[in-house]
């Protein structure tokens, strides 16, 4: 695994099973580039990474946790490139993902296998901009922008959260914007103000109206897409639609103070809830329970033995849709699947 020092940057290529941590004080000032576009092929990092101003370019994988000081930039802007992080991304700066400029149909919304980045674990930073990314974990930051993403977890933003043709399990933010066709894997979320619904213009200039669907309803349909595809609506799309007037309610909430002696803080929150409209919750229960089982297996997967892992994947296969299985199999297994 060659490690080349170029000015104030250290470029890493090829395969390495060691962890990247500055061993001298001098090394803390270097930035690190992990380049998968060289003749050494994709970068393969078997352990964790810490560095200042990290950059991951081209194809590659990192099996450990990535902790950055400053910005983390992931460049998969060439067609066919994909990176996978199996330990999560953490930084005190910004996280930015560069992907090919395509339309919505050619992103993971059209086909989940078009995903450019797969992260198993949490993505935590300050300003986070994920594109064409699948996250099996939470995304947390001050300003979070998800574009053509699928988040099997919470999208949490202390300031602004923007879901642009994206899907998430639930959200928590102060300000929220839905851009284009979005999908809620669960009808849960809260924000300080009512969310905004704005149209989306994708990379090819095609405009998409804002629409939010509830995934467990369309999950029963053939195809089971993990994204909202307005060009090929599901048979249950009309039933799955969430309406701002009916499904987002503003309630007065009271939360505990920051210290034990502090008085409770009262505030208005806008909550996403289908409890006021959904009638046959029993029909949704199966889908919800299957997704819960899926998440549980994914969290416990590392603790299974080899035989246990095979059995777990078999259980996953039995309760998931094709796209769900593809996501979790790629997130859990060390070897990438097709």
């Amino acid at each position, binding site marked *: 695994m060659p490690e080349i020092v170029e000015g104030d940057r250290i470029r890493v290529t090829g395969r390495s099973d060691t962890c990247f941590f*500055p061993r*001298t*004080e001098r*090394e*803390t000032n270097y930035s690190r580039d992990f380049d998968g576009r060289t003749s050494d092929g994709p970068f393969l990092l078997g352990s964790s990474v*810490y560095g200042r101003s990290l950059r991951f370019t081209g194809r590659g994988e990192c099996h450990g946790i990535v*902790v950055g*000081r400053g910005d983390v930039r992931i460049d998969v802007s060439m067609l066919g490139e994909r990176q996978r992080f199996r330990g999560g991304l*953490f*930084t*005190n700066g910004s996280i930015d993902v560069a992907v090919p400029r395509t339309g919505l149909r050619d992103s993971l919304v059209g086909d989940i296998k078009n995903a450019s980045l797969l992260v198993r674990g*949490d993505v*935590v930073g300050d300003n986070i901009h994920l594109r064409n990314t699948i996250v099996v974990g*939470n995304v*947390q930051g001050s300003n979070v922008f998800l574009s053509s993403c699928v988040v099997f*977890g*919470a999208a*949490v933003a202390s300031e602004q959260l923007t879901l642009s043709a994206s899907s998430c399990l*639930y959200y*928590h933010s102060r300000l929220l914007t839905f851009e284009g066709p979005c999908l809620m894997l669960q009808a*849960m*979320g*809260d924000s300080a103000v009512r969310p905004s619904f704005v149209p989306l213009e994708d990379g090819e200039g095609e405009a998409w109206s804002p629409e939010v669907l509830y995934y467990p309803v369309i999950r029963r349909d053939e195809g089971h897409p993990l994204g909202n595809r307005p060009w090929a609506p599901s048979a249950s799309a009309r039933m799955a639609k969430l309406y701002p007037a009916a499904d987002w*309610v503003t*309630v007065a*909430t009271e939360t505990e103070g920051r210290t034990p002696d502090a008085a409770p803080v009262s505030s208005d*929150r806008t*909550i*996403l*809830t*289908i*409890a*006021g409209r959904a009638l046959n919750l029993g029909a949704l229960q199966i889908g919800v329970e299957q997704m819960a089982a899926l998440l549980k297996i994914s969290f416990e997967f590392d603790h299974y033995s080899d035989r246990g892992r095979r059995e777990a994947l078999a259980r996953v296969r039995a309760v998931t849709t094709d796209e769900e299985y593809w996501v979790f199999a790629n997130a859990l297994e060390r070897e990438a699947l097709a």
Partner: protein
Amino acid sequence: MSEGSCNCGGQIAALESMISRLDDRIQVIEAEMADVAQAIRELGGHLGGKIDSTNNHLKVVQAEVVAVGAALLAVKTSTEDGFAATQRLQERQTNAMVQLDSVKTYTEAVALARKGASFGKEVDERFNKAVEGIVLNRVLYDKHFGAILQEFEEKVRAIGSHIYSIWEEDFSPLEKAARVPTSAYAEVSFEVDLQRLASRSAQLDQDLEMIRTQHLDPLVALDGNFVRTVRETYAIDGAVEGDAYFVPAVVVLTADAAEVTVDRCAVAPSDAAAGEIAELEPMGRAPAISAYCASPAARERVQRDCRTRPMTEAEKAQLVAAIKRLAERGLVSPRLVPGFVQYVGGVQMSMVDGALEGRGVAVAGDR
């Protein structure tokens, strides 16, 4: 002091003897005076004229005696005063001696006590000094050892300062953020969902109860009323075994009469007596029109002779008129009449002919 005491005692004794002698002398003088007075009186008795001078002489003598007595009393008084003064002086001297003795003893005792107290104080001071010395030594020890430890840590930190800075500036905030369970963000949504579901459930219970009391119960009562009314209205008079009869019913026939759907029909038992009310029973699909006939004979006749033909417009109008007449008589709910009319006008209705003379079974009208 003893000599003074002896002198005072001697003087007192002398004075006492003098006083006693004076007392004796006074007594002697008083006795002599009494003798003189007696003698005088005797002389007075004998001497007449010399009594006054003698009396005067006696008076003078008496005055002198009195003066002597007064002088003796004064001496006695002064002697007594001197005695008392001497006694007081003696007492004072005795008290002074006692006081001096006691003061001396007290002073000695106080001195001894002071000596003991000063000794104890000195012991305390030395003990406190010893303790202070120990504390100072301990403080010095802590100070020096702390300085050594701090220097060690600073050296370690100096070697790995970049590691500490990474831990404090990068990892600690991320770890702190990761410790917040994300389920905490979903609590509000859960609570709102549960509250909405609970309120909807309560509202649903309330609505169902209202539907039951305002709609379902009246319908059930109407149904019961209908059954009772039809029974009373269509009671069988003079029924004879084997008679075939028809009652108002809604019958739906397929084109080839292969299936019959009958809403209600009346079937009299074969041994029905005159006046016995027919039992009404709902029937579903029957394999043939003949299945609902009252008796086997009628059934055979229906099977042999019944034919279906499309209902003419006149017959439809007649059926509608019959329905309206039933509504006027209160046998059919007026609210159902428009639905009947619409049904008759909208479906392909057929007449069943041939079973009996007169109308077929598809007509609801007068019997």
